[in-house]
Each structure stands twice: as C-alpha cells, then as structure tokens.
C-alpha cells in the first residue's frame, strides 16, 4: 500500500494548476459561458497538454497513466473552475476522432428515464454522444433538435434541452457504457473535491482580510468552526475519490461500483456544503455576482448530478450491504 501522492503526481497536478491559473483566470471562465464565448483555441491548448488522454494508452495517442492520475487532474481542474465539457472529453478521447486533440468538442448525455434531457455544452459541441443501457451513439450536434437555454444556473456551463434524438447505430455496447458511466461519475466527483477545496480557500482568505469589531472575522469561532468543517469534508471526500481512482486501476482492491457511488455521496456533499459556507462567510458580498463564491456553488450543482446523483448513489452503496 502506498496511498499518497508520488512526486510525479504532484508534478502533474502542479503543471495543470499553473496552466489553469495562467490560461483560465476567472474572467476567461465566466466568458466561456456566454454565447459565442467558447474559446476553441484555448480549449485546444488544454488538449495539447495531453489532458484528455492522461489515462489513454500511449498506442492510442494518450499519455498512458493510470486512471487515478486522471482523477487528480480533474480534481485540479475542478478547483480552478475550468470551463468546458471536461468529463465528456476525458471519456471520449480515443473513442471519437478529434476529441483527444481538442479539434472536436464533444457533449455527452446519459439518456434519462424521465424528465427533460438536459445536456451541458451542447451549444458549443460538434458531436453529442448519447449513452444508455444498450450502448453508445455518436450524433453530429447539428443534427440534434435542441433548445439552448438563455440563463443556465451556472453561468459558465451552458445547457440545452434536447427535444428529439435521431436514431443512430450504436458504437460500443453495454460493457463500454458501464465503464464510461463509472469513470464519468468519478471524474465529476473529483472535480467536486477540487471545487470544495477552492471555495474554502477563497472563504479562508476573505476571513483573514475582512475586519469587523476591530478584528479579522476569521478569528471568531463561529466562522472557524464552519471552515474547519469544510476542510474535513474535503479531506474525507478526497480520500474516497482517490480510493475509487485506485480501485479503477486495481480491481482487486475493492468494488469499483460501490467506491464510485460512495465517492459521489461525499464529494457532492463537500462541493455543495463548502460552496454554500463560502457564500455565507463572505456575508453580503457573497450574495453578489462580483465575488466568485457563487460560481463554485453553481458548478457544484452541475457536477453533483453528472452520471448519478447523491441520493441514487447512497442507495447504490446500500444495495451492496449484505448485513
């Protein structure tokens, strides 16, 4: 057992973090969500780093690293609020030509059994990949009848409602879909962990600077306790997400379906609760559009229902309990 970051993993995440800080500052993140704001050149730069092919074998043009390294990359991207169809691109690189290189922008949706078919980033995508229990279908985005939403909850994540899906022959079967669903859920959970840490860092910095009653507000226990809880939620969620990542590489180390579901339960909680706490710590300023605090909460809401939701995940874990 060696359940700690290696030097290589630290270098990898440092590189991604530096890139994201440099090329995806908040203004860029916010602009990506505006109509016509999707910056293909910058998306291409992200792809050129090898981001989407981290866990893809070298023979397929990827970097050939373990899944857990891709998990760490998503954690880092989540912390930077990096925009775009990150999970879709990571799942489809190597399956859909051009995605790995960033030339083809994908959207992906797990066909719901009820309710509207809401798809992220379809407005800016070249292809829509639809997965269901039978398999996976690749559709040209232009061929999909959809209504693009004017005011998505997360300003940096445009969403569309798909009215009708054309029929296409599936590529890849149920086994491939099962694997994609698990990895998709895992990558979204990893982003939630990064999101939960970053929203906490933002709040901690504010609590150190903002003075009331002649003292920094971070010296008050009422705030300290809220922020300490945020820290713990992140570390607990991170532990479960990393474990699921390792199990994806080492099936003998555990039950991947249970690990992924458990990670979703904890990562969703860490992401949403920490972001809410972050807004609260900012006080009235936290309730304004200017401060970034709300961006973390809104992104966390997007991520917590990608390839599963916390309630369903909790039930999925319960189903593995024999008693």
């Amino acid at each position: 057992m060696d359940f700690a970051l290696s030097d290589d993993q630290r270098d990898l995440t440092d590189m991604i973090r530096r890139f994201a800080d440099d090329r995806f500052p908040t203004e860029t993140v916010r602009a990506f969500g505006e109509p016509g704001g999707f910056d293909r050149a910058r998306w291409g730069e992200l792809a050129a780093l090898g981001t989407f092919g981290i866990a893809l074998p070298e023979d397929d043009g990827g970097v050939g690293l373990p899944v857990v390294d891709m998990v760490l990359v998503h954690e880092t991207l989540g912390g930077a609020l990096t925009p775009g169809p990150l999970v879709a691109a990571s799942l489809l690189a190597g399956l859909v030509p051009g995605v790995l290189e960033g030339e083809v922008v994908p959207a992906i949706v797990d066909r719901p059994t009820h309710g509207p078919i809401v798809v992220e980033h379809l407005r800016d995508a070249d292809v829509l990949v639809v997965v269901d229990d039978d398999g996976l279908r690749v559709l040209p985005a232009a061929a999909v009848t959809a209504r693009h939403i004017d005011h998505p909850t997360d300003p940096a994540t445009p969403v569309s409602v798909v009215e009708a899906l054309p029929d296409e022959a599936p590529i890849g079967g149920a086994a491939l879909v099962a694997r994609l669903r698990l990895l998709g859920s895992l990558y979204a959970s990893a982003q939630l962990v990064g999101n939960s840490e970053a929203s906490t860092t933002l709040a901690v910095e504010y609590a150190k600077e903002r003075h009331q009653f002649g003292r920094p507000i971070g010296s008050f226990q009422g705030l300290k306790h809220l922020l300490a809880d945020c820290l713990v939620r992140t570390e607990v969620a991170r532990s479960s997400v990393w474990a699921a990542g390792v199990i994806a590489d080492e099936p003998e180390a555990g039950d991947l379906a249970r690990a992924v579901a458990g990670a979703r339960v904890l990562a969703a909680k860490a992401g949403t609760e920490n972001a809410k706490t972050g807004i609260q710590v900012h006080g009235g300023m936290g309730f304004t559009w200017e401060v970034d605090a709300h961006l973390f909460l809104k992104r966390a809401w997007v991520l917590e229902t990608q390839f599963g939701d916390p309630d369903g995940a909790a039930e999925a874990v319960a189903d593995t309990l024999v008693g």
Partner: protein
Amino acid sequence: MQLRDSEADADFRARARAWLADAVPTLAPEPDPTDWPARRTRDTQWQRLLFDAGYAGINWPAEYGGRGATPTEHLIFLEEANRAGAPDVGVGFVGQMHAGPTLIAEGTPEQQDHHLRGILTGDHVWCQGFSEPEAGSDLASLRTRAVRDGDHYVISGQKIWTSHAQVADYCEMLVRTDPEAPKHKGITWLIVPMDTPGIEVRPLVTVQGSAEFAELFLDEVRVPVTNRVGAENDGWRVANVTLSFERGTGFVGEMLETTRLHGELVRIARQTPRASGTAWDDVGLRREFGALAAELDALWAFTKRNVSAGERGGIPISGGSGFKLAYGALVHRLGDLALRVLDRASLSFDDIGGLPTGAQVHGKLHGFGVSTGGGTSQIQQNILAERVLGLPREAR
C-alpha cells in the same frame, strides 16, 4: 498510488492471518463489559499471546522489544486481528499507545528496563492522569501539586477521566511542580505506581451506565524522584512529544467496531417489521445506511492516507483532528440511525427480540465519548482552523 499489498505485505498478512486463526480460539470468552478485573485478565492474556508470538509492540522499535513493523504492517495486523475476532488493545491502550512510546523517547535506561517489557507482556497496565476537573480542554491549567521532599515528590490533588484506573498498575501523571511559572512551564511528567498510599480511585459512571473512567483523589502521595520522566518542569513538552503516536492507527480498533455495529444494524433493519415490509424497505433509512457506509469507506481511505504519509515521514493530513472530527460525527449519525431503526426497542439496554439492540443504544451514547474525549469536536475545529487553515487566534 496503490492500495494493494506489496509482496512483502501480502506475506506478512498471510502469516498474521494464520497465527491469529490459531490463537484467537484459545482465548476465554468475552467477559461482562462492566467486570473490570475480568476484562483486565482477558486483555492481558491476549497481550501475552501477542508477546510470545512476536506481535506485541508491533510499531515499537525492535531495540525496545517491539516488532519494528512499518505503519502499513501495523494497519494490516489490526485489520487481520479484527477479522479473526481478536480483542482490541483494551486495558493496554495507555501503556502501548502512550506511556510506552513516551518512555522510549524520554525515559532513562532504568525506566525503560523496568517498564517497557511489562507493557509488552501485559503484566503492567497503565492509566493516564492528565485531565483534572478544572483542566480539560485547557489541560495546561492543571493544579495537582507535587512538592519536592528530599528524593521524593509529594503529590496532592485530583484527576478525572482516568480510563482503566480501577485495574491499572501505573499512572502516567502530569503534576504542577512550579506554581509560579507560566502555566505550560511548571509541569512535570511522573510515573506513579497505583498501589502507592494516598491514592483513592472512585469509579465514574458514564451515560452508558458503566464505569469506564475513574476519578483519582491524591493525598500526599510519595513518589521517588527517579520516577520523573524528562526534566523537572519540562512535562508539557514530554507529554506532547508522544501525543502523535496514536494518530494514524490510533482509531483503527474503534473504527472496526463501528463498521461491525453498522453491519449489525443492517441485519436488524432487515428483520425489523414496519407497517409495510421491514425497516430496510424504507428508502430514507436505506439511503442513510448507504451514506454512512460510504463515509466509513472514506474514513478507511483517510486512515490509509495518514499511514502512507507517516511512512514517507510526512505530516499526516490535518493530523488526528480532522479524522476525529469526521469520526465523531459519523458515530453520532450511526447512533441516530440506530434509534430510527429500533424505534421503541431503543428504550432498553437489554437486547430485545433476539437482536443485539443494546449494543446499538450503547453505540449511540458512545458517540458523546468520541466527540468529547481527548478534546471536544469544537476544540478540534479550533485546532484545524488555526493550524491548518491559518486563521487568526481568537482574542484571549
């Protein structure tokens, strides 16, 4: 990053498993939990078996009689011991996890010779005399006095929350030797034999109805100066040197017990009738079962991160405070779930309907032990906020 056993670890696990499979069945049956002399007998009998097989002091350095195992091997042994139904460290906790490591780090060769082997064989049981009625979270404000009289210290005062005091041979005690010094400076660490005249042990009954702790009343208790560990008035540092020993693997036994209680509650839920079906058919309850299982899995992974960080010589993530905070909250939630499942059966400590309902009620109340013992959850929150997040200290 990997979770699988290395070849050497797999080999260690296989040998430990084989030994445990033979050794555990030779133990006497578990005694009544309130029968402290019987608990001491059983726990120390187990400790002797461990010692004879070379599994005592598994994480202690070999030159002090330990096995010198890696933190990972320690974790593996604890996992396998639990799987085999072996007793937890029990009355050996203070000696093995705290007093022994303190003596290894700070004791004289004579103190090490006299005490370390006894701790490892189970012959010596220790208790901890740190807390006082007026010195809990603010431990350094302790007031129990030790006055030098020739080659003895004469101790008077009162201690509280002293686990296993009823059956202990020695007490690791913090006393005030310089009342004039700033509060952290005038403290000394002493080895106090429990049969010294002047010590009165009064059991303290907890909300669970059992005497887990005792109060110690100390009236002119004479202890030789040679029983001092470290320098006079340097006891605060000595006590802190070893507080980190129990981090990482310190809660593993507890957590395994909680995992077992969770599994038992699943079984109870599946057998507890509701208006329609069983408690397990209630989706609200089932989701909470799943969420708690996810959290237990996560805390296992958290422990493994801490162990791996320790193995690399790094600082464990957020220390023991983060784990303790999360674990305390988990135990409370599991207890709350038990009460929801048991419904009216939770009104009894005695088992009802052939199910171990009493253990669940005890588990619920035990949550308060976790969230208050060794520094309350709120103290842990302050520690994390100040030491990890770097928030300013509260004005004092």
